[in-house]
């Protein structure tokens, strides 16, 4: 990766263009005919650049970026698996890409919705899905709306509280708040699982349901799920499954069988569609039979992110009934392999078998001694960048102060994991002998650690011509 310091605006020269459109005919009226009172005073300050300028600029930007195709990306709770290339070709097929969202009588499109619905139902044990949500958090919001609709349709108006474990993804409480629900937090026990004893007193006739991630954000399977489901259902509540951590269960365990009533999936995590630097995703929501009448909540403009659905469906067809059975298991295998290979040099607070991810609580020996500050989780993460790896998720979940959350996925080979393990051990050695190496990291990236405090105190949020 090499540093490149231009913004597209800085390449601009008056009179250049990268546009190949013709001008309108000279004698015809154009936008000049629009009354002045409805026209903008000044043209927008867009760059004036040629097509080769644009291509070189964005190629240079891409070379300061790291993706799954660049190298190992063990980002916990993000499921950075390989993104198959055939999926991109299918999503770009003009016969799909040219369809207007309000067109009807499209048997080929209908087959995609029905086929993907059926496949996701098979994998999750849910009855049907809606594809309108555009991302995971959007799916959470949709699922919670469905839960509220269900209760209200039964005239049960006072169920406005939702139980959320303290280990939940930040989107869970945020989605609940957007849905107008009051959040009740349930604590994790010493084993990192939802405490059944703490849950019991929270359950009453004001509880709409519980949001659970299983395996949870510590990568641990909530093994009391049967008891939890019984308690919540007996109290008249519903169970929401946060599908962000679905990957280890694909092909082995179905949320529907565990008693979950509503769930979302992140097609951009579990079903191999690319994350695109933060999106587009797709967050279809599946429900059990009794909630099917409420699937129609209207949460986005048209029909959901169809282009993302095409990719996910292509991936599932290639998995097929044969390969699907190994998907979650191999992801789980990789996570446990890394955990067991590093637990002597990184603190492992919870030692039991994990699922697709697990959490270390910082270095066993951080190199601190009299007057010398030890290396933190942030320093480990930044040092990994020097060695050509993306960092794991850090400082989440909030249950540990120095959390390092590692998720390898099933598309990584043993050699890749061994090399990563080797580097993590080397970093632990460096920390023990000279934590300064880590504290100064990264050393080999296009930029070193930026000053984030100044960025927030004195925000510069757009290009301003000097």
């Amino acid at each position: 990766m090499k540093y490149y310091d231009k913004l597209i605006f800085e390449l601009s020269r008056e009179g250049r263009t990268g546009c190949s459109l013709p001008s309108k005919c000279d004698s015809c009226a154009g936008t000049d005919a629009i009354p002045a009172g409805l026209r903008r005073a000044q043209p927008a300050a867009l760059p004036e650049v040629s097509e080769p300028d644009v291509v070189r600029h964005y190629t240079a930007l891409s070379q300061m970026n790291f993706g799954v195709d660049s190298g190992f990306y063990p980002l916990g709770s993000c499921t950075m698996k390989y993104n198959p290339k055939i999926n991109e070709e299918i999503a770009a097929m003009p016969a799909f890409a040219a369809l207007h969202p309000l067109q009807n009588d499209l048997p080929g499109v209908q087959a995609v919705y029905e086929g993907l619905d059926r496949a996701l139902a098979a994998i999750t044990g849910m009855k049907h899905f809606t594809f309108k949500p555009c991302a995971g958090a959007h799916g959470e919001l949709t699922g919670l709306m469905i839960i509220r609709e269900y209760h209200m349709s039964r005239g049960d108006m006072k169920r406005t509280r939702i139980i959320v474990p303290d280990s939940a993804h930040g989107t869970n409480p945020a989605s609940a708040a957007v849905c107008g629900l009051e959040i009740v937090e349930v604590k994790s026990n010493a084993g990192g699982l939802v405490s059944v004893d703490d849950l019991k007193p929270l359950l009453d006739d004001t509880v709409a349901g519980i949001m659970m991630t299983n395996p949870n954000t510590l990568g641990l399977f909530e093994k009391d799920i049967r008891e939890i489901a019984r308690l919540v259902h007996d109290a008249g509540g519903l169970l929401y499954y946060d599908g962000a951590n679905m990957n280890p269960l694909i092909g082995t365990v179905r949320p529907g069988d565990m008693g979950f009533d509503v769930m979302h999936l992140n097609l951009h995590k579990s079903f191999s569609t690319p994350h695109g630097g933060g999106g587009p995703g797709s967050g279809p929501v599946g429900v059990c039979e009794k909630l099917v009448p409420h699937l129609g909540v209207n949460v986005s403009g048209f029909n959901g992110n169809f282009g993302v659905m095409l990719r996910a469906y292509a991936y599932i067809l290639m998995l097929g009934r044969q390969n699907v059975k190994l998907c979650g298991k191999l992801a789980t295998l990789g996570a446990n392999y890394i955990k067991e290979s590093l637990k002597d040099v990184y603190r492992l607070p919870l030692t039991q078998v994990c699922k697709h991810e697990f959490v270390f609580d910082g270095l066993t020996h951080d190199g601190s001694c009299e007057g010398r500050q030890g290396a933190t989780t942030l320093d480990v993460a930044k040092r990994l960048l020097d060695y050509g790896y993306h960092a794991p998720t850090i400082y989440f979940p909030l249950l540990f102060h120095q959390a390092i959350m590692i998720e390898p996925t099933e598309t990584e080979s043993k050699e890749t994991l061994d090399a990563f393990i080797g580097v993590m051990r080397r970093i632990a050695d460096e920390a023990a002998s000279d934590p300064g190496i880590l504290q100064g990291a990264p050393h080999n990236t296009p930029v070193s650690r930026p000053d984030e405090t100044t960025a927030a105190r004195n925000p510069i949020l757009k290009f301003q011509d000097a």
Partner: protein
Amino acid sequence: MMAGFQYFPHTDSDIQAMLKRIGVKSLDDLYADVPEEFIYKGEYDLPDAMTEQEVREFFEGLAAKNPRLKVFAGAGAYDHYTPAVIPYITQRSEFLTAYTPYQCEISQGTLRYIFEYQSMICTLTGMDVSNASMYDGPTAAAESMRMSVAQAKKKNTVLVSSTLHPQVRGVVRTYAEYSGVTVREIASCNGQTSICSLEELMQEGDVAGVIVPSVNRFGIIEDLAGFADIIHAGKALFTVYCDPSALAVVKTPAEWGADVAVGDGQPLGIPLCYGGPYVGFMACRKDYMRKLPGRIVGETRDREGRRAYVLTLQAREQHIRREKATSNICSNESLMALWVTVYLSLMGPEGMRRVNDLCYQRSHYLYSRLLGTGKFEAVFPDAVFLKEFVLKPLVPVRDLQQRLSDAGFFAALETEEGYVSFCVTEKRSIADIDALVNALES
């Protein structure tokens, strides 16, 4: 044990060696903590695994079943031309296969294009601050509804113009319903948001925000003179919902005195793709910067003093604030933000002028040709439109649509009032337009 699947690199001996290190005997043992009854023992109801060629042929087969129609419809999704450069850039795997740019030192590419995107949205809308993207236009409008109510403290009503696309009003209503916010519609007058109706509703009080389109669902460029004064006198937030392509020509939300600008970036060269992925945009005046939902990229310096970009003002976001965040949004539509950034770079001010000129010229040509068939009446003869317009059909709408579809056109969408709408972008030639009119006359 392994059949060999191209996305799974594990050999049998790899698996055995890894299991040994872990200290278990089989892959099943890794699920020993899962109650036995929850281990799925049935056969998954999925097709047999397909090869890559079979998958390709499967989708080619499905694609062939969809009729290929020339699109003369808009209604919130516009068939503008996509320059070849864009997919070439957005398919670069360093962009495509990256996550959200949390590790800024190896994400300067993503961060820099988001900064450029924010800058372009600001210059198009005239606003001070843009976020890094929302899911789509309607959800961006819903977020502006939430932002209005959040800043207004005690007021709990949001007004939406009845000239907004139905999907925008629909999604705003959905979000409002669960937040206990009342949504009321401003009536229309001659195809535009009625300023009288706005005044009446404002006088009833409790209004936290008002959402009005710049180019509305009839294709009309609205005259929003006077709106800001009325809305601000009622201490409400003024949001303008806009088509960003049209903003290259029409008056900006800032010029109308708005506080917030939202809309869908799709008209900036994003393929129709049956409705998504698109990209919502949201920008505001500086005063509301810390109330914006979603990610924001800011400029700073690294330790060596080099210009660097980071996610900033994160105290607004769900991963920090949880239930107190300004929104629950996490993943957005980043790659589609890159899409429109590359589009706007290629087009520049001159290209955006040409697009709008061609849309204006050709849509007006179709408008007069359609009136000439005698099958339509003008509805808003004095209104100014840019690329989309409505007519009153004098023949049954179903027949009209059938005839057009048989001739290879998707056009004449029916509005709530029983009008039909047409849209002409620069992609439709004069010959296409003549063919459409001929299909109606034959």
